[in-house]
């Protein structure tokens, strides 16, 4: 931001060059440089000028162990970035149940939300509730959001929410390893998988979804041979990393993968399994199994092309199911990326739209009541109606068609405890190396092992230096 401003300044100067002013400009510049030179060492000496502020140890770190909901009029502020319609409906239903508690939502577009949430939660007038996002683990470490573990036990959340979706909200590093903490509660769940066009698949001689990865490879080859594009991938943005993560899910033990995402000491992505997965992705690209313009296609565009028959298979998440079901009806199907053996453990990538409580809130109990409400049958119906997978699937009737296929796949994943984080949850700056790295893999511009090295380097920066600084 600062550079933009100074660049503008240069531009203004450039637009009307006053050559006569060169000489006179030089003196203030020198003066400023001198000022800077004086400021810099004194800052290190006294620390008052050091940017940022230390964590405030006076604030509570956990919620109280009580499910009592206070009386009297209470207003809770909620900041969020996903599914405004769902949030509005949830808030209205919650208000009906607790008329004295009003939740005021404030919506920010996702990309901006992720960038600003750290500052928002650190400010003195932070909102009471905030949607959980990448980087929240750092916020938890700083003590800006409350540890919800006492509520989990008091409200009995372990029975209301799938274990995997709670496990994803337990912080990172040492905090996660202890397993005792909880920093968010899920409303709607998300999950990735493979969509396929049943009509086109039949033309290529494919009768049913693949049961093993090898069978899937055979199907991709068959589609290629039939002269169609096998797999649509929107690798211009996040489609590529979804494909990579799906392949990793089938070849890396979930426990090792989760340790890596959570920053457990000694965890690594450089394993034989992930190398094989990465090589598979590169090989698929070489064989022409991926859409040849994958690197120039955004996720939404790859989805659009799939609805028009532009590819037989498509990598995407359950968030696309509504659109695909509407556009293609019974033609569209869904399956999870198959494992090495038939009936292998169902593992896929996913996360939740979930919410955390600020440690600056004056109403932790009212906020706790809102989070508990997310596990209620009313909330489940709202979540499901808005295209997310509900935490408690038995509370809603099984939908038909494509949505039903997605829901059934999700039940398998829940039953197998197979929900892995998206890989970018490893570190706030992991998204770009993943996106750029998969693009290079697709274009054959990086070797699989160099790609994994680059990811591990980002991991190390996040989980060794920071962790040391925090605890030291």
């Amino acid at each position: 931001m600062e550079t933009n401003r100074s660049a503008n300044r240069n531009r203004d100067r450039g637009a009307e060059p006053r050559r006569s002013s060169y000489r006179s400009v030089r003196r203030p510049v020198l003066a400023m440089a001198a000022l800077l030179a004086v400021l810099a060492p004194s800052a290190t000496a006294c620390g008052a000028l050091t940017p940022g502020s230390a964590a405030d140890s006076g604030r509570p770190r956990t919620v109280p162990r009580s499910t009592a909901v206070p009386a009297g009029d209470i207003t809770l502020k909620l900041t969020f970035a996903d599914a405004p319609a769902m949030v509005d409906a949830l808030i209205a239903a919650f208000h009906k149940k607790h008329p004295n508690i009003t939740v005021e939502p404030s919506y920010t577009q996702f990309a901006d939300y992720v960038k600003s949430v750290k500052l928002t939660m650190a400010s003195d007038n932070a909102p009471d509730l905030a949607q959980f996002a990448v980087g929240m683990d750092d916020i938890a470490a700083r003590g800006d959001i409350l540890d919800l573990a006492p509520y989990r036990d008091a409200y009995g959340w372990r029975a209301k929410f799938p274990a995997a979706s709670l496990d994803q909200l337990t912080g990172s590093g040492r905090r996660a390893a202890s397993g005792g903490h909880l920093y968010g509660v899920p409303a709607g769940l998300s999950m990735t998988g493979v969509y396929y066009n049943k009509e086109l698949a039949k033309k290529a001689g494919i009768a049913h979804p693949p049961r093993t990865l090898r069978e899937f490879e055979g199907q991709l080859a068959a589609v290629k041979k039939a002269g169609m594009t096998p797999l649509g991938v929107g690798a211009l943005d996040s489609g590529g990393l979804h494909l990579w993560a799906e392949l990793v899910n089938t070849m890396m033990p979930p426990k090792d993968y989760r340790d890596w995402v959570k920053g457990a000491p000694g965890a690594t992505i450089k394993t034989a399994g992930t190398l094989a997965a990465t090589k598979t992705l590169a090989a698929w690209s070489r064989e022409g199994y991926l859409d040849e313009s994958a690197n120039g296609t955004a996720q939404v565009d790859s989805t659009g092309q799939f609805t028009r028959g532009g590819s037989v298979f498509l990598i995407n998440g359950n968030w696309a199911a509504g659109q695909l079901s509407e556009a293609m009806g019974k033609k569209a199907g869904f399956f999870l990326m198959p494992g090495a053996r038939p009936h292998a453990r169902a593992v896929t990538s996913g996360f939740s739209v979930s919410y955390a409580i600020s440690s600056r809130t004056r109403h932790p109990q009212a906020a706790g009541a809102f989070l508990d409400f997310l596990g209620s049958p009313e909330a489940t119906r709202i979540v499901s109606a808005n295209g997310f997978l509900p935490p408690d699937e038995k509370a809603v009737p099984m939908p038909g068609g494509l949505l039903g296929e997605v829901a059934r796949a999700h039940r398998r994943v829940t039953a197998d405890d197979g929900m892995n984080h998206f890989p970018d949850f490893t570190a706030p700056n992991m998204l770009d190396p993943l996106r750029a790295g998969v693009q290079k893999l697709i274009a054959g511009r990086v070797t699989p092992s160099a790609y994994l090295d680059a990811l591990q380097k980002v991991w190390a920066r996040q989980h060794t230096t920071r962790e040391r600084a925090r605890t030291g």
Partner: protein
Amino acid sequence: MNTQVRTRPGPGTRRAGRRGRAAWRGYLYVLPALAVYLLFAVLPALHSAYLSLFDWDGVTLGSWTGLDNYREVFADPALRGSVLNALILVVFFAFLPILAGLAMTGLLILPGTSAAGAPRRRPGMGAFRLLFMLPQVVPLVAVGVTWRWLYGDDGLINETLDGLGLGGWSRAWLGDFDWALVAVGIVGAWVLSGLCMMLFLSGVQKIDPQLYEAARLDGAGPVREFVSVTLPQLRGELAVALTVTTVAALAGFDIVYVTTGGGPGEETTVPGLLVYRLAFSDGRVGLASALGVVLSLLILVLVYVINRLSRPQT
């Protein structure tokens, strides 16, 4: 511009006392503007220079690291590569638009020069100006989205290539490792050509008609006239155009952010994008500031060189 240099009062012409007081009073007049400039331009710039000496995530307490961030700017191949990309973009953002602007100016001015000696406007000049200036008026984000669609797999450019029987050339331009930077550069050239043309057109109108008359009497044709009269007289405008477009290329962010996000790989990653990403996604405000400072210095040097070169030799 030249007059400013000439009319500047020579030093030492008045008595020292009066001169001192006059100078003091002069600063008083400048004070309001200076205060705003200091507060909103100089101080923030200095503040980021100061932040560049810290390892700071934007929230928690930063720690002093001295010049480590600068060392990383020069050592990290990804950061160096982004500067290189920006320098390549200068070709597209500065040289192409200036050539295009000159060509358009030549075409719009030349045919009318004969009658009274002065460059006359071609009929429909207003419409041309509006048309070529339009890219400047449209928000850059809208420009980026439109071009992303044009470059798309089944976008207009590929459709046209297919229609011409050049289907072998069609590709996802923004996702192609060899072509993405060129594709982004062309967007910039398209945006900035109109601006250059406007600058040159306004410059041409200030040229003394007698120069054209003299050239004509010496038997110069339209091309000779353009090269010998119009072009040298546009020296100042050329300097301005080169400065503005070079800064746009080096400090650019929006077009890249909207079209490619820096991809594929790091092929179109520019420093502006990295500054944003480092500061707001990666929580490395110090490194982002250091990169910003280096970028600003690079721009200052280039702008200085441009202005130096464009000064008329006497």
